[in-house]
């Protein structure tokens, strides 16, 4: 059984008991425990079920590489699935639940998949869920969705807060093991601004567990000295629980700091995302031990050898009382010593190498441990827990020589440097045959904006394995990084280290070498996604020869651990199956983040009201106090309508339209884009931008204009007013203000930079109020506005006047078909003017109206709306706006584009009005049906609806749409789709439904 040892555990504090629950069961551990070590201390080796076969899963590793021990942590608004028990620090009240089983962890119905595993080989989903097509949506999709994903998604809003932090460094050191500390000291002594981050809660990494002396003292003392020196440097920032998540272009790095995961509390951000720019990055990210692929290597109790000694030395727990060890290298012998030192048994060390190990093996024999060469695990016995191992020759096919009872197996297949961060931004790897590992190729480092390398690897991340190698490598990495960052390195004396002589490992990718199909189909590569040696071999056999294809076909390395344990073993198996060398097969791509980071940390503070800025017009507060129903328009909020007591939005819109058409209405038009174009060439410039002529407009006059892009497509419209000889004010749509300003700047700066003109966006400088309706003039006159009669201020002119004592600019323009004035005043005076208008309006029974009434009235009048009648593929000619396209101008944007054959095609869909025969309102987005079907068995269409409303003025539904044949179809009856099924009959009519002659607006 796994248990708490009587003594030992340098990271735990036995004086501080901590209680927690696992699947509702009360358990206890010590401060300093990880959830994994605490579970082991409570003999909870079974922690989850695998993804596909629901096989029992135990803890395999002791760090970020853990594939199995994934749990749901917390409850309610603090629940989070798929958290690694090995990197979860224990705290009082922690609650964890296991995943991917029903009804319970111990008894899981889904485990039947394991018995059927020969029916679920690689590519099972691709082969099974193919046909018939009719099954895709209602049969296959629910099955696939149900089996997708391990943990359950949270159902409540995240109760925690998160933040972003921007940081800059000359040298960023990722990894606070002995290599990272050494490199940071080298950089820090040179005076560089150093940022050092370590993903765990402890400095020093695994060196104290592996042992060794530096300058005659235990390595732990050397680590303390390094940490002490760094802590005293003002130019060095040190962060624990902070992972280097990803390395990106030009020295951009994301750090992921878990501030309160180990001690949840409110009022403090849970995670902090560091957004770092570093001149140089040193990755001292260590190495990860590889599992060995033998039958039953997934049974709970089979663990990585180094993890076993981590649990014993660091955390004072043992995964078993009798630990069998299987290895292809010398390092795993250290685990045997740790187990023995803890007073537990090592029944056997199986060394797959025919010549066995070096000095460490001799020492093991001296301690009385049985050591066998050329031996392998034939299979592991046990179901939810290891009960023994069957031994065979590594060279053979798996014939059992002997069976040995044990309750844990420590395996070691050698080490793989953590090259992820090196590789994220293009660092290349080289295959090291002696060490059987991919390590960074220092001559092909990631390069920055200046073309120079900006990442250096240090220590075992660089392939150095012995203590002396690691220290030398890290010191030189620190020196070269700080030098590249522009500092002079300070020479340091190398500390003296005596390494134990080790015999190189022998690569073992399948155990035993000639394993039968039966054994290979029980030899796991990817524990989380259930990929076995046989699956990779099947993929190769079926032609998925590229490593990237084999990965996707088998899902090797595609689980939440991204193949930290499985990838190298998997591609070695693939290369054997293809009979190619490992470097020829290559690796899959390493992508950030190194381990999953929370979505909360990515969002940071950008949530709720801070998600994006809200733009308020100067009248926003008034709307809010007067029953407004808001409509989001970009970042703006515009009144959709104003609700009176007991009124529906539909009723309100009718009341607002009728009030405006019969009396007078007030509109907040402040969001309308207002761009000033000024300069001697302003008119010439606008002639190029608008389809019609603007340079001939006289000061004091207004003209409606259209803007197209070079393709010829209509992009914006609005009224242009000429203020003086050199100055124009261009109104744009609400959404167009920033876009059209950018459009103008682009052409002015990059094509017609010889033109003398400037563009200024004054949208927010003015409040703009529409005074609309037959009594508009009377209302303004009541407020003492002189000289606004039809002769002095005719339609499509503007003038400066004082209204209610406030200097205003009055534009006589109309988007409703009524007598209409738009009043522009400085933003700060908007509210005063609006209140005066509302006050004086009472005598006229005036209404305030919102965007929906505005839309209804413009549609009644047949006015187009950018975004409704246009969608980026519509040209002005489609909308019968040929009158607004100059024939005289030599050039304007879109002129050439509109000459293209497809845009000049007479069969294009063109604007018409539509009235249903029964008076009903056509549905939004409806299509006009045509006879027959197309080659995809879809019904043919001859047009589509662009705007559709209930018209209070006409008392019926009205619509605008684009129809093949356009206005030549007047009087035709067409069929318009409805979501419910039956089409509705509609008559093609003139799109101007109201006051065709324009008598009402021109008074």
């Amino acid at each position, binding site marked *: 059984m796994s248990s708490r040892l009587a003594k030992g555990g340098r990271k735990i504090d036995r004086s501080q008991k901590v209680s927690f629950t696992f699947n509702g069961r009360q358990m206890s551990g010590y401060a300093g425990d990880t959830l994994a070590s605490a579970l082991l201390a409570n003999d909870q080796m079974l922690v989850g079920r695998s993804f596909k076969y629901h096989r029992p899963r135990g803890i395999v590793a002791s760090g970020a590489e853990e594939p199995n021990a994934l749990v749901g942590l917390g409850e309610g608004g603090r629940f989070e699935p798929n958290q690694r028990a090995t990197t979860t620090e224990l705290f009082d009240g922690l609650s964890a639940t296991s995943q991917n089983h029903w009804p319970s962890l111990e008894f899981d119905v889904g485990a039947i998949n394991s018995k059927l595993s020969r029916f679920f080989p690689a590519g099972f989903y691709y082969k099974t869920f193919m046909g018939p097509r009719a099954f895709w949506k209602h049969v296959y999709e629910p099955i696939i969705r149900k089996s997708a994903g391990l943990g359950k998604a949270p159902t409540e809003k995240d109760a925690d807060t998160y933040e972003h932090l921007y940081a800059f460094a000359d040298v960023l050191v990722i990894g606070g093991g002995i290599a990272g500390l050494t490199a940071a000291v080298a950089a820090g002594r040179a005076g560089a601004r150093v940022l050092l981050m370590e993903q765990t809660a402890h400095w020093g990494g695994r060196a104290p567990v592996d042992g060794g002396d530096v300058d005659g003292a235990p390595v732990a003392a050397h680590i303390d000295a390094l940490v002490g020196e760094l802590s005293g440097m003002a130019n060095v920032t040190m962060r624990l629980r902070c992972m280097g998540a990803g390395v*990106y*272009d*030009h*020295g*951009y790095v994301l750090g992921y700091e878990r501030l309160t995961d180990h001690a949840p509390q409110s009022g403090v951000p849970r995670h902090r995302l560091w957004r770092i*720019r570093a001149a140089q990055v040193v990755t001292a990210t260590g190495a990860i031990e590889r599992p060995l692929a033998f039958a039953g290597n997934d049974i709970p109790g089979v663990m990585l050898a180094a993890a076993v000694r981590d649990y014993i030395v660091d955390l004072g727990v043992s995964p078993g009382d009798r630990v069998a060890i299987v290895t292809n290298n010398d390092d795993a012998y250290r685990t045997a010593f740790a187990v023995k030192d803890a007073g537990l048994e090592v029944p056997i060390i199986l060394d797959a190498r025919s010549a066995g190990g070096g000095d460490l093996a001799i020492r093991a024999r001296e301690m009385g441990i049985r050591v066998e060469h050329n031996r392998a695990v034939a299979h592991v016995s046990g179901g939810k827990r290891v009960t023994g191992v069957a031994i065979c020759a590594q060279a053979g096919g798996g014939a059992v020589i002997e069976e040995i009872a044990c309750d844990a197996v420590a395996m070691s297949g050698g080490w793989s440097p953590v090259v992820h961060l090196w590789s994220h931004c*293009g660092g290349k790897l080289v295959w090291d045959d002696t060490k059987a590992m991919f390590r960074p190729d220092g001559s092909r480092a990631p*390069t*920055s*904006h*200046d*073309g120079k390398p900006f990442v250096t690897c240090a220590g075992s991340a660089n392939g150095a394995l012995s203590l002396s190698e690691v220290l030398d490598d890290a010191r030189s990495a620190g020196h070269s990084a700080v030098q590249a960052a522009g500092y002079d390195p300070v020479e340091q004396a190398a500390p003296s280290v005596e390494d134990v002589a080790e015999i190189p490992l022998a690569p073992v990718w399948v155990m035993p070498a000639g394993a039968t199909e039966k054994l290979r189909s029980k030899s796991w590569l990817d524990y989380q996604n259930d990929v076995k040696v046989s699956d990779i071999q099947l993929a190769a056999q079926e032609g998925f020869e590229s490593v990237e294809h084999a990965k996707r076909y088998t899902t090797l390395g595609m689980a939440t651990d991204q193949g930290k344990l499985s990838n190298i073993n998997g591609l070695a198996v693939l290369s054997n199956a293809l009979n190619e060398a490992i470097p020829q097969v290559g690796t899959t791509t390493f992508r950030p983040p190194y381990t999953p980071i929370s979505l909360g940390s990515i969002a940071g503070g950008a949530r709720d009201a801070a998600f994006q800025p809200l733009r308020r017009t100067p009248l926003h507060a008034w709307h809010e106090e007067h029953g407004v129903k808001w409509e989001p328009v970009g970042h703006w909020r515009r009144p959709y309508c104003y609700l009176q007591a007991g009124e529906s939005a539909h009723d309100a819109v009718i009341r607002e339209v009728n009030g405006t058409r019969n009396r007078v209405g007030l509109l907040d038009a402040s969001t309308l884009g207002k761009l000033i174009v000024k300069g001697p060439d302003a008119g010439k410039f606008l002639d190029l931008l608008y389809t019609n002529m603007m340079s001939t407009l006289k000061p004091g006059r207004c003209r409606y204009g259209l803007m197209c892009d*070079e*393709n010829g497509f209509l992009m914006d419209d609005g009224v242009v007013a000429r203020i003086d000889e050199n100055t124009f004010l261009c109104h744009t749509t609400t959404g167009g203000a920033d876009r059209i300003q*950018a459009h103008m*700047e*682009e052409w002015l*700066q*990059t*094509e017609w*930079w010889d033109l003398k003109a400037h563009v200024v966006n004054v949208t927010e400088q003015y409040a703009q109020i529409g005074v609309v309706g037959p009594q508009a003039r009377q209302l303004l006159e009541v407020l003492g506005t002189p000289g606004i009669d039809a002769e002095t201020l005719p339609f499509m002119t503007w003038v400066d006047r004082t209204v209610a004592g406030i200097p205003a600019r009055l534009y006589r323009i109309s988007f409703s078909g009524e007598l209409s004035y738009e009043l522009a005043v400085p933003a700060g005076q908007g509210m005063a003017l609006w209140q005066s208008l509302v006050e004086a309006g009472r005598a006229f029974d005036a209404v305030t109206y919102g965007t929906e009434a505005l839309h209804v009235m413009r549609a009644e009048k047949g006015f187009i709306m950018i975004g409704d009648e246009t969608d980026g593929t519509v040209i002005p000619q489609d909308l019968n706006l040929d009158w607004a396209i100059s024939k005289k101008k*030599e*050039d304007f944007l879109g*002129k*050439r*584009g509109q*000459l*293209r054959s497809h845009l000049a095609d007479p069969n294009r869909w063109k604007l018409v009005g539509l009235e249903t025969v029964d008076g009903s309102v056509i549905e939004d987005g409806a299509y006009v049906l045509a006879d027959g079907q197309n080659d995809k068995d879809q019904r043919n269409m001859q047009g589509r609806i662009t705007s559709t409303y209930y018209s209070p003025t006409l008392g019926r539904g009205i619509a605008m749409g684009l129809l093949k044949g356009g206005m030549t179809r007047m009087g035709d009856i067409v069929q318009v789709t409805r979501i419910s099924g039956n089409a509705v009959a509609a008559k093609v009519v003139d799109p101007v439904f109201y006051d065709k002659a324009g008598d009402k607006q021109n008074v």
Partner: protein
Amino acid sequence: MLLLECPCCGVTAEETEFHGGGEAHVKRAGPSSEDAAFETYLFHRENPKGVHFERWRHVTGCGKWFMAARDTATLEVFGTYSAQTLAPPEDLLKQIRDKRPGFKWRDVQ
């Protein structure tokens, strides 16, 4: 995330301050152009693996457009220069030739 220097205001800033504007030095085909020339102007773009000349706008900074010479594979930025030019400046081209001997972009060498 790229670092770029705006040649107009002199600020070196992160990519998020800028907005990419596609290929540089595209010659506009006007209203009287032939179909083929207009098609080239509207749709045909270089897609090199290597040296590329492109437009950027310092959109949340000074608002000015400028040009950049950048390696699309290594992301090395050789330099930035004024948008009010018809071809890359000679001193920049010399620097690129030194770093990428034999490079060719359209008819720029």
